[in-house]
C-alpha cells in the first residue's frame, strides 16, 4: 500500500505491506538508521521518535497508522547547520551516552519529557524515562543531562 507523511520536514511516500512497522519504514524504506530497534516487546524505547509532536515508540505502530503524520526522527533534531539541539548538547556535555545505541530514543524521549515537565526534578526525570532502557550509563549522567538541558530549552 502507498503511504505518505512528512518526515523531518520533508514530504515522503513509500510502498509498504500492511504489516510493516513504522520503525521498519523509517529504517529500511527511508534509510534513516538513527532510529534503532532494541527489543520486540515495546520495552526498550530505542525506537522512540516524535509523531505529531509527541514521543512514540515507532516499533509499536504500523506504518499505515502514520499516514499523513508529521514525523521527527533523531536525524531531524539538530539544526540544518549541524548545531545540536540543547538536549543533544547536554548529553554530550554530561557524558549521557556510551555505546550510543539507546541514545537516539533516549534523546527523543527526553525532549518530550522536558516539554511536558518544564524544569523537572530528578525524581520526575527518572520516572518519565521509565520507558527507555540504557545498559551502559547507569542513567546517572542521562539524568544530569536532562536536568541541564531543561534549563536551556
Amino acid at each position, binding site marked *: 500500500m502507498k503511504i505518505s507523511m512528512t518526515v523531518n520536514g520533508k514530504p515522503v511516500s513509500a510502498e509498504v505491506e500492511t504489516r510493516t512497522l513504522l520503525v521498519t519504514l523509517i529504517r529500511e524504506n527511508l534509510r534513516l*538508521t538513527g532510529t534503532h*530497534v532494541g527489543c520486540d516487546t515495546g520495552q526498550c524505547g530505542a525506537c522512540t521518535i516524535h509523531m505529531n509532536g509527541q514521543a512514540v515508540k515507532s516499533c509499536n505502530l504500523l506504518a499505515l497508522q502514520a499516514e499523513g503524520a508529521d514525523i521527527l526522527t*533523531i536525524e531531524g533534531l539538530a539544526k540544518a547547520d549541524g548545531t545540536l539541539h540543547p538536549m*543533544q548538547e547536554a548529553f554530550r556535555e554530561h*557524558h549521557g551516552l556510551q*555505546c*550510543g*545505541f539507546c541514545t537516539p530514543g533516549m534523546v527523543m524521549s527526553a525532549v518530550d519529557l522536558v516539554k511536558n515537565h518544564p524544569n523537572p526534578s530528578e525524581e520526575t526525570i527518572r520516572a518519565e*524515562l521509565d520507558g527507555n532502557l540504557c545498559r551502559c550509563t*547507569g542513567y546517572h549522567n542521562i539524568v544530569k543531562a536532562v536536568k541541564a538541558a531543561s534549563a536551556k530549552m
Partner: protein
Amino acid sequence: MGDMNTIGVSVKRKEDYRFLTGAGNYTDDVTLPHQSYACFVRSPHAHAKIKGIKTDKALKAPGVLAIYTGEDWAAAKVGGLPCGWLITDVNGQPMKEPLHPCLAQGKANHVGDQIAVVIAETYNQAKDAAELVEVDYEVLPAVVDVASALKKGAPQIHEAAPGNTCYVWALGDKGATDKAFASAAHVTKLEFINNRLVPNAIEPRAVNASYARHDESYTLYVANQNPHVERLLMTAFVLGLPEQKVRVIAPDVGGGFGSKIYLYAEDVVLTWASKHVNRPIKWTAERSESFVSDAHGRDHATTAELALDKDGKFLALRVHTKAAMGAYLSTFGSCVPTILYATLLAGQYTTPVIYAEVTAVFTNTVPVDAYRGAGRPEATYVVERLVETAAREMKIDPAEIRRRNFIKTFPYQTPVALQYDIGDYEATLAEAMKIADVAGFPARRAEAAKRGKKRGLGYSCYIEACGIAPSAVAGALGARAGLFEAGEIRVHPTGKVTVFTGSHSHGQGHETTFAQVVASRLGIPVGDVDVVHGDTGRVLFGMGTYGSRSLAVGGTALVKALDKVVNKGKKIAAHLLEASDADIEFKDGVFKVAGTDKAVPFGSVALTAYVPHNYPHDKLEPGLNEQAFYDPANFTFPAGSHICEVEIDPDTGVTKIVNFTAVDDFGNIVNPMIVEGQVHGGLTQGIGQALTEACVYDRENGQLVTGSYLDYCMPRADDVPSYKVGTKVTACTHNPLGVKGCGEAGAIGAPPALINAITDALGIREIEMPATPERVWRAANKKD
C-alpha cells in the same frame, strides 16, 4: 604547547556527535547491494531428538533462496565452535569438549538451539518461510540447574560428558586449608546461588556476511568485541578458510559486556552460506532470540566457609562451586569459573590458605560465558558476603574486620596464584566511609525506624585482575590464544595522526581516551588524532576488548609505538638541526637540541619524513609510521570499596538505595568523565543482579521463563540512585601509563554491598539474589 597534555582531563567524547545525530553505523545499519536476509529455525524444546526436518514447503515460499540444516552442515565437513581455554581437571585429564555444532546434529540441547537457517529476499519472507520448516522432535527430559544435572539418573546431555560433568578442577592447598579450619576459633559458612544473568546489550547481535567472487574473499560485518579473534577462530578452527581471505568488521557496536566476545554459530553459518547463495546475507537478532542465543553469565551454586581466629583474623577459606556451562562450551566459558574466579578468592586480604573446587556442569540452557566481571563478581560475592557475615557473628565492626585483614605490603603473593603489584585498601575504604558518612548512619537508621522503615548499611571491598593477560601465564593456565595487544601510529605528512588499535570500543570511548594518550605524547591537539578500531582489513592485529584490558594493554601497545615514532623523529630532527641524535629532546611537540634554542616542531619533522629532500637517507627510511605489540608483564589489580545504604519498606518489601558510594583505585586516570561513566554503568549492572535481574528456566520443561524485557527485569532509571564516586590512585607498576582498568569494577563490587545492606537492614543472615520486593517482604515478615 603545554596545554596539549590532556591526561587527567575530562575531554568530551569525539564519538558523541555521530551517535547524537543518528549517524552511528551499527551492523544492522549496513545494507549491501543485493542484500538477502536470514532467519534461524530454533528449537522450541530444551532437549529433543531431531527425527527429521522437512523443508519442501518452506523452499517453495515466496522469496526463499536457500535453506540449510544440520545435514548440509555435516556434509560440508566443517567443524564445531571451538572453546578457547583448556581446563585440566583434578586428575590431570582435559575437560570434556562435546561438539558445539553451528546447526544441530540430530539433537537440540537448549531452547533456542539453531536447527536450520532460511535465506530469502526479505527478512519477512525468511521469517514466514522459517515457520513452514517442519521439524519432527522427540522431546527428551531436560535439566536446567547444576545441582539436578549432577544427580544420578539425571538426563544426559552429551555422550562425551558422562554425568553432565565438563570438569572438576581445584586450586589451592586442600590439606593446609582443612587443617586451618580444624583449629579455627570461628567458622562462618554460607550457601548461595549466584544468579544467572542475561547480558542484554541494547544493540542485538547482528551479522552481515558477503562473498566476493573476483578475489574469493569474504567480508563479515558483525556486532563483536574482538574481530581479529573472531576471524582467527572462524577460519582456522571451523571453516578452514584462508585467514587472509576473510575481513571482519565490527563497526559501531551497541554495548557488549562480554556477550559479543564470542564466535557464534550465526556468524559462521552466514559467512559459509554467503558463498553458496552468492549474496550478502544479513541477520539481526530479535530480542527474544537474543535471550535464547546470546551467552549468559554467572549461574553458580556455592558453599563457602571462612575460618577465623578469636580476633577476627582470617585463617583459611574453603569454597565448593558448581558452575553451569550451559548446553555447550562457549568461547571462554571454561575459564570463567576457574581462572577468573578462584584466583580472586584472596580478595584484599591476607588469608594464608585457600582451597577452591569447581565442578563445571552441562545443563539444557544457553551456554554461559563471561559477562561484565566474569568470575570476579562471583568471587567477590563469596568473599564479601562471608566477611560481612563473620563480622556480624563475631560482633566486630565490618570495616574493622576488613582493616585487620587487609594486605598492606606489596608486591603480595596470594595463595591462589596471583601476585598483586600495588594497592592501598585502607585508603579507598577510609575515603568511601567518609563520603558515605558512615559515622552518621546510626542516626539515620533511628530516624528511619521512627517512620517504620528499616535502614541497613553494607560494605564490599573488591579486587579484580584486569589487563588480561601475560600470554605465557595464560598459556600455562590453558589459554589457547595469546593475550597481547597491537597498535599502530600512522603520522601523516601534515602531522595529523591515525591510530590503529586492536582494542575495540563499544561504548568505552577509546576514540577519545586513546586520542588523548597519543596527542599528549606528541604535543598535538586531540582533534588531530583519529582512532581506527574494529576492522581486520585496516588494523594490523588485535585481541579485542574484555577484562578491562583496553588501556592497560592496548594503550601500552600505542605508547610503545609512540616511543618508536619519537625516536625516529629525533633522528630526523637531529639531521635538520645538524646535531647528534643523543642531543635531541622531545617535549610539548617540539624537537630541540638540549640546552639551546635550536628547535623544530613535530609537524615539520612529519613533513620531512614524507618529503625527504633534506634527509639522512643513508641511516633512515622515509615515512613516520610505527607499529608495536605489547604483552603485559602481569595482570593489573584495580580495587576499591563500595558502601551501600538501603531503606526498606517492610510493608511492601521495596528496597530503596538511598546512598551508593564507590571509591576505586584504577591507577592513573586519563579521562575522569569516561571512568566515572564506566563506574556508573557497572554499578547499575551489579545492582541489577542483586535487586532485579534473574534468568529463570522452568525446571520441568526447560523453557526460558524470562525470555523478554517484560519478564527479565532490567534496571530502569527509577530503580537506581545517583551515585557518589571517588578515586584513589596507586599507579600500576608495570605499564608505562600506570593504568589498571575500570570497566568491570562496578558490576563486581555492587552485589555484595547491596545484599550486605539488605541483610543488615532486616537483621537476617541470607537473602537470595535478586532481592525482589517479594523476597524482601517475605524476609521482613518472616514468611516462606
